[in-house]
């Protein structure tokens, strides 16, 4: 067997290398520093790592290449996702710093795992080969399994980590079986044609439409694996438990980052590579999207725990963003990107408010404990109001623009009825977002709920995400423009 050694183009995964190097550095440096010291430097080092990653990722804007043996796509699409994920992660680091401050859980592992998870999500966005997709998926999944169980004294945290882990590994097995079948059907795991192979995309163009049964079966199993990661019904069982038991900053990061990375892969895989096969995957995804939107919205209504409420809301949002994917047109692509970038910032903000109120002991997470919050902490209540309105999709918030874009794309593609179902689900969802507001404003409470965390970093995260939610809801042009330019694929 003869082959050439691939050219070393490590610049293609520069951001990921920066993150992984920082993580290793954190682990080793911390292992040599005696215990009992104030560990402020951990968050600083992590922030620097993410800063370098953002700069390296932004530098790739405008490039269009397949590198590292055609396994990694360097394009605007990947750059957009990578930059967003890094921003989510930096905000999570700052929030975690105040959350963990002076606790036994403030260890280098927490930040290192966060860096590894973010590196996996970034790699996922630029993966142009099913092997790469799997590796990236596992890098961030395994990191998140540990992070979910990081509250070592809490039974709930351990239980949610166990559930997340077992179901996650279960779904990974289905995902892998899907990859194996796709590989058997097409003879390749690479996405794009070129470099001596035709890739999955090339196979679909060249082959007769009749012998794709095995491929369709494989694609169906891929939907199971990816559907699990974005928390789509019926693969959503883990979501409420994992979200409730995890440390609140991590919950926010999971909602924002995991969803973005997994949907990015789905966009690249389904809308670009498997586009000729759309008659087969569309019906499956439509059924999944409808079930996800409706079930997520309906079950959120009966929740009494704010973290579980936001978990079901995140399930519903997975359904909304799937409508953009199902449209499979340019507007759907850029709309989904815009949707996920803004949703990520909003949901991070919402969980930041939950974190500030709940603290490391994760108290005051029931809806009832938010009673009269407005009279105690008007600013926090105001920020939470903004996040809830944005999640509900009220105009003048970023959530409205995102919903407008993905539903518009569905209508353009002829799926107006899907958009109607989406709007119906939004109306149901509005009910429970308003319930949170009613509790905060209309009901008085004399207990005087005080924030458990008063750090400047945590408050600045709330402030920044609130500002982003408002500004992107009014001046949406530049970000939409970026999202549109990001959908120029290598294809």
């Amino acid at each position, binding site marked *: 067997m003869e082959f050439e050694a691939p050219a070393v183009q490590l610049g293609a995964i520069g951001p990921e290398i920066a993150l992984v190097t920082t993580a290793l550095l954190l682990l080793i440096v911390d292992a040599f520093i005696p215990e009992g010291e104030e560990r402020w430097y951990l968050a600083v080092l992590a922030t620097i790592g993410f800063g370098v990653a953002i700069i390296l990722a932004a530098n790739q804007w405008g490039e269009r290449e397949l590198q590292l043996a055609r396994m990694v796509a360097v394009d605007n699409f990947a750059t957009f996702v990578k930059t967003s994920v890094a921003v989510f992660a930096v905000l999570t680091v700052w929030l975690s710093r105040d959350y963990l401050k002076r606790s036994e859980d403030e260890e280098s592992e927490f930040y290192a795992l966060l860096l590894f998870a973010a590196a996996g999500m970034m790699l996922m966005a630029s993966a142009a080969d099913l092997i790469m997709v799997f590796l990236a998926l596992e890098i961030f999944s395994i990191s998140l399994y*540990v992070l979910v169980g990081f509250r070592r004294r809490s039974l709930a945290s351990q239980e949610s980590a166990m559930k997340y882990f077992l179901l996650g590994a279960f779904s990974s097995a289905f995902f*892998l*079986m899907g*990859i194996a079948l796709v590989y*058997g059907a097409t003879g390749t795991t690479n996405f794009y044609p070129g470099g001596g192979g035709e890739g999955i995309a090339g196979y679909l163009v060249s082959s007769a439409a009749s012998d794709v049964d095995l491929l369709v079966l494989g694609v169906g199993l891929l939907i199971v694996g990816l559907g699990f990661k974005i928390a789509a019904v019926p693969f959503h069982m883990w979501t409420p438990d994992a979200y409730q038991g995890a440390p609140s900053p991590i919950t926010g990061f999971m909602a924002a980052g995991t969803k973005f990375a997994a949907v990015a892969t789905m966009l690249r895989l389904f809308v670009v590579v498997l586009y000729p096969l759309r008659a087969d995957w569309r019906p499956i995804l439509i059924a999944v999207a409808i079930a996800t939107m409706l079930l997520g919205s309906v079950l959120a209504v009966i929740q009494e725990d704010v973290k579980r409420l936001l978990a079901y809301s995140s399930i519903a949002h997975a359904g909304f963003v799937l409508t953009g994917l199902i449209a499979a047109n340019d507007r759907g692509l850029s709309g989904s990107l815009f949707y996920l970038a803004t949703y990520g910032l909003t949901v991070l903000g919402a969980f930041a408010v939950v974190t500030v109120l709940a603290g490391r002991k994760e108290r005051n997470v029931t809806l009832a404990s938010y009673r009269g919050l407005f009279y105690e902490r008007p600013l926090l209540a105001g920020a939470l109001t903004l996040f809830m309105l944005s999640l509900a999709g009220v105009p003048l918030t970023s959530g409205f623009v995102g919903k407008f874009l993905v539903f518009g794309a569905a209508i353009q593609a002829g799926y107006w009825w899907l958009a109607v179902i989406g709007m119906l689900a939004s109306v149901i969802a509005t009910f429970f977002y308003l319930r949170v507001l009613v509790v905060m404003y209309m009901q008085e409470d004399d207990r005087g709920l005080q924030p458990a965390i008063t750090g400047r970093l945590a408050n600045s995260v709330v402030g920044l995400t609130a500002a982003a939610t408002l500004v992107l809801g009014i001046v949406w042009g530049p970000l939409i423009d970026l999202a549109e330019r990001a959908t120029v694929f290598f294809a």
Partner: protein
Amino acid sequence: MPLSYVLVLAALLFSIGVYGVLARQHAVLVLLSIELMLNAVNINLIAFSAWLQDTGVPGQVFALFIIAVAAAEVGVGLALVILIYRNRRNVDVEGLSLMKW
């Protein structure tokens, strides 16, 4: 040996794994069943790889990656099992019911 024999074997192994995940109560046995599913995938990949001959290298490499990642997953899984056992004295999946709905 026809390819279909191996694929049927892999499908059977995979199904036994799925059954094990759904039916077993002990967390370690669930983990074992998941490993069974991953090994079914490995058999599939190797079979396809041999069948495709010249273009079959990715399949073999992929199987190695799956073995490595599965080891990492088992590491995390056993660590979680130990952590939970220390606090609860048992690791039945049915017992993980602090949170519902």
